[in-house]
């Protein structure tokens, strides 16, 4: 190694330590998560908060999580919104998580939603059938790509929040074997797109 490359490496190493400490002190400061803007009740729908089980509490740790059961007409579903601003690692790829929990994915299809698209999955485990619809949102664009989520969340941290709002994972799942009219829910539950 030449003397110059050695000096450059030492300089780079020292800089990473100094910038790392500065980021730790002055890094992105997050206020109240926008997931709390979602009302429990409104015109045509009603909901109640569900408590997180111990494994969910340990998994999400410092992340802000909303777990609610909503009823809209005849359709009942659970909505989970995860804001990983304080713990990015709490947001996992839903496909990987459900497979890890023993569900097999029988089909998937993209569902167009305001600002992008979500992914609708049909899951099976034993005698159970469930439908899951999820997407990531930064309040401007919506998509179902976990890689794009990683890129958005990483760039946001590196740019100290200047690249946009923290992407939030929104997951909606059916409660029983009956299918859900997602188009109707998305149409009537417009507040979902204000997150």
């Amino acid at each position, binding site marked *: 190694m030449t003397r110059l490359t050695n000096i450059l490496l030492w300089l780079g190493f020292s800089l*990473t330590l100094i910038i790392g400490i500065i980021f730790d002190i002055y890094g992105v400061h997050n206020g109240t998560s926008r997931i709390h803007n979602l009302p429990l009740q409104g015109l045509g729908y009603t909901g109640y908060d569900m408590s997180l089980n111990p494994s969910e509490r340990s998994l999400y740790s410092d992340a802000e999580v909303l777990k609610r059961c909503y009823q809209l007409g005849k359709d009942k579903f659970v909505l989970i919104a995860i804001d990983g601003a304080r713990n990015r690692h709490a947001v996992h790829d839903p496909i990987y998580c459900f497979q890890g929990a023993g569900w097999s994915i029988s089909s998937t299809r993209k569902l167009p939603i305001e600002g992008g698209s979500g992914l609708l999955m049909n899951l099976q485990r034993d005698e159970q059938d469930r439908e899951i619809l999820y997407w990531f949102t930064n309040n401007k664009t919506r998509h179902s790509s976990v890689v794009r989520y990683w890129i958005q969340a990483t760039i946001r941290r590196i740019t100290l929040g200047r690249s946009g709002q923290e992407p939030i994972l929104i997951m909606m799942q059916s409660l029983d074997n009956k299918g859900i009219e997602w188009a109707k829910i998305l149409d009537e539950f417009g507040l979902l797109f204000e997150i």
Partner: protein
Amino acid sequence: MIRNRPPIIAVFICIYCMVNSLDLIVTWMHPSQARLGAVALIIWVTPVVFYWSLRNRFNEKTKDRPILLGLGLLLSFNGMLGSLNVLEHIGLACAIGALLPPFPMNLVWLASSLSWMPAFDWLGGRFFPEYIIAARILISAIPACYMAHSIQTRISVNP
């Protein structure tokens, strides 16, 4: 003068990348197939240990790899700032990879570091969920064995 240890800066950068990748230990503590990543890492890193433990038998000077070392530092640093574990893991792989001089198949061995990363479970879960364990061990072992063989051959050529 022939050095029998890596440069101090390389050791410091490796330690920095290791500290940034401490999440690996938490992942491996979980009772899942991801813990086999620890086994894959031990297999993967064997050529580095093998090379430096036999270094005094070589006559030739070890060629340093400052670009790979700098890349490892940069990736690990950005992974830490951006809270993205996979970048930190790739950074660690590059930093450890920089401890070895260029050998044939070096890039393949470096790419096989994916086998010990938790990202491998995520990728495997999507494309080959039933073969993750076998794929993880094979992908880490084959390039590592080839590298160890190349090191052995170089010792025989330059005793």
